[in-house]
């Protein structure tokens, strides 16, 4: 049964990265837009994420619940040593979620909108940055349970070049996912071109940040090249991601929208696969060489069985409803387009 649970965990992380990432990315590209295109970006983004915002956010909760029910030692170790970045990420989630809703539901439209907006944009940047930092710290091998000073036990685990580089890369990835997603969310030619331009820029930034990650890994003595390219799965996923990137740009130049979106999501999943495969089943890599593995540190069997069934039965309800939600609001926009609005 543990394979079912691990699959769900991986899927929840992936979907949070892709769906939540596009969601964060919408804020990120708005933050870095020139003031002329800002309000347009905002409008397209709002229409796209309004109805599905809550649902995207749920993947994080699912991942956390799987961790604390199924892999309690991993959950408690992470929350002890990565306390500070987790708190910052929570602040980001809180500020962002509330600012997003407040700016749309304030009955009076006045200067407050500027405040909500500022908060929304900055937290859209901070949250994925720290999500990336947390993910980077899990595999960087800097978590040090034997440390005796505050700094080495609770700060340097995550405040190091490698983790920060992963954080920046995550931000770039979100910006990229969002711009590719938003190309299909508008039917005004000028806007579409502007999103295509943004997608190119964010693609370039992601490549730069990726290079940064490898440099930082080298500086910190983390054998990232070997990890990712030293096994067939890693190698294949890197090649598949690169090929699909070429295909995606070709299709975008033909003004296709749906398939490029899927390809962008595919690239994100290949990146996650390459990183998680080499460590599997380890989830947390510690400085003292002890690795917290999903197999060794799982809950007792009775719990794992119950959790697996809860997830399986739950998804019977959730998946159709979720598809219908995405479908309804997609269809809706196409109908509006058809009417020439």
């Amino acid at each position: 049964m543990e394979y079912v649970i691990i699959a769900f965990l991986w899927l929840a992380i992936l979907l949070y990265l892709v769906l939540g990432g596009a969601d964060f990315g919408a804020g990120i590209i708005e933050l870095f837009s020139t003031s002329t295109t800002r309000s347009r970006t905002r409008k397209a983004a709002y229409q796209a994420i309004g109805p599905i915002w809550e649902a995207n956010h749920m993947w994080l909760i699912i991942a956390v619940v799987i961790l604390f029910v199924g892999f309690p030692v991993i959950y408690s170790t992470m929350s002890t040593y990565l306390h500070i970045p987790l708190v910052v990420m929570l602040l980001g989630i809180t500020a962002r979620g509330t600012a997003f809703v407040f700016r749309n539901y304030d009955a009076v439209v006045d200067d407050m909108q500027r405040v909500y907006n500022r908060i929304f944009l900055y937290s859209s940047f901070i949250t994925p940055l720290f999500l990336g930092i947390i993910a980077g710290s899990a595999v960087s091998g800097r978590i040090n349970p034997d440390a005796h000073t505050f700094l080495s036990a609770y700060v340097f685990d995550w405040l190091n070049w490698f983790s920060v580089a992963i954080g920046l890369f995550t931000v770039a990835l979100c910006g990229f996912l969002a711009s590719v997603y938003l190309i299909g969310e508008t039917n005004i030619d000028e806007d579409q071109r502007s999103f295509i331009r943004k997608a190119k820029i964010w693609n370039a930034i992601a490549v730069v940040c990726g290079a940064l990650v490898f440099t930082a890994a080298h500086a910190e003595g983390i054998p990232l090249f070997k990890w990712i390219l030293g096994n067939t799965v890693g190698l294949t996923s890197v090649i598949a991601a690169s090929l699909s990137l070429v295909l995606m740009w070709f299709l975008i130049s033909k003004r296709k929208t749906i398939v490029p979106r899927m390809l962008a999501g595919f690239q994100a999943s290949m990146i996650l696969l390459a990183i998680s495969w080499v460590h599997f089943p380890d989830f947390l890599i510690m400085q003292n060489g002890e690795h917290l593995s999903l197999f060794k540190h799982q809950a007792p069997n009775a719990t794992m069985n119950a959790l697996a069934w809860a997830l399986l039965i739950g998804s019977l309800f959730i998946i159709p409803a979720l598809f219908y939600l995405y479908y309804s609001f997609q269809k809706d926009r196409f109908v509006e387009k058809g009417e020439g609005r």
Partner: protein
Amino acid sequence: MDDFLAARSQMALSLGFHIIYACIGMVMPFFMAVAHYRWLKTGDAAYKNVAKAWSKGVAIFFATGAVSGTILSFELGLLWPKFMEHAGPIFGMPFSLEGTAFFIEAIALGFFLYGWDKFNPYFHWFTGVVVGISGLASGILVVAANSWMNSPAGFDYVNGQYTNIHPMKAMFNNAWFPEALHMTLAAFASTGFAVAGVHALMIVRKRNIHFHTQAFKIAAGFAAVAALLQPLAGDIAAKSVAKRQPAKLAAMEAYFHTQPYSPLVIGGIPDEKLKKVNYGLEIPGLLSFLVYDNFHEQVMGLDQIPEKDQPPVAVTHYAFQIMVGLGMFMMLIGVLYLVAVWFKKHWLESNWLMKLFIAAIPAGFIALEAGWVVTEVGRQPWIIQGVMRTKDAVTPMPGIAYSFYLFTAIYISLSVVVIFLLYRQIRMVPQLYDKKPEQLTLSHN
């Protein structure tokens, strides 16, 4: 502030904040569904406007409820890693089921909030009902986790090891039913009185009377029924506490010395050093009656419980008195309201009834918070009753006090913004909905 106290305070603050939003998020969808249904049946557009106006408030509360809940699911680990390490696999079942309930709720909410005039009206209505049902289900499920902490079940604890784990038995622990029943009623009563009171205020001020009267009736109906049932459910809860946590019961009642014809102490100032209550009203035999249904059987007092296993008496006792006092007050208003609806219609037009409802705006939420203080402080020094002490569960990280200050600042600013937004929503009602009913039917939206 020491780290342990800071961690407890931060947990209490977060839960105390979340519970308000969670209750509103659970209950408001039902109010909206009733208003919405009446609109579909009668065509009176005031009902549609009520449902729509409420749904905007609910969207605001949902966002705050969702983020404060997310904070909580991390905080369990951030503040109590040792507790979660052992408890997670045992009491995790309700949380994993709750995940499904949240998800369905979030999906249905997307349909409901963004689906006005887009879908078949009955499908749209139905999505609103689904929001309510799944919200209620998640509330009931998460209470199972809390009741497990009060009444641990589904595992054996031998030599510091947690073995023989049965997640299902842990979920269906003895305290779940009384707590969930009482909690659900509390959600309806507190939200109902708060909402009814705000609309009563508008009626007294003669603003948009038709709109506010329809809204008032829906909320007051739910509130009155819940307030009537609440003391009954509270009695069930107290009997269950007496069985599983005699120390908590004794602290609630500030009952220091075990004796036959055990007295019920009303009010008073407990003196924990001298082990007596000053200025309290003692009614002999009543506590025995409430717990055992007879006047003589002796209830276990604090003197039979080792000092190191006793909860703080004063806080628990005050909180309990506040909850019960407000419960009686709300029950009284509920009775008056039902009498008005069935026998004395003209009371409904009178200002005094409206003023009572206005006075009761905060009552439910204060009682709700007080009730949780009884449950949680009364369980101390245990985090898992009789198994693990709270101080053994706290995170080793120093400096939690700063985190507590930070979260306090966040929760205060969030509350200020939410109140500000609601105030603006209510202020805008005239502009948005102040048209004659006939006009509205033709030109809504």
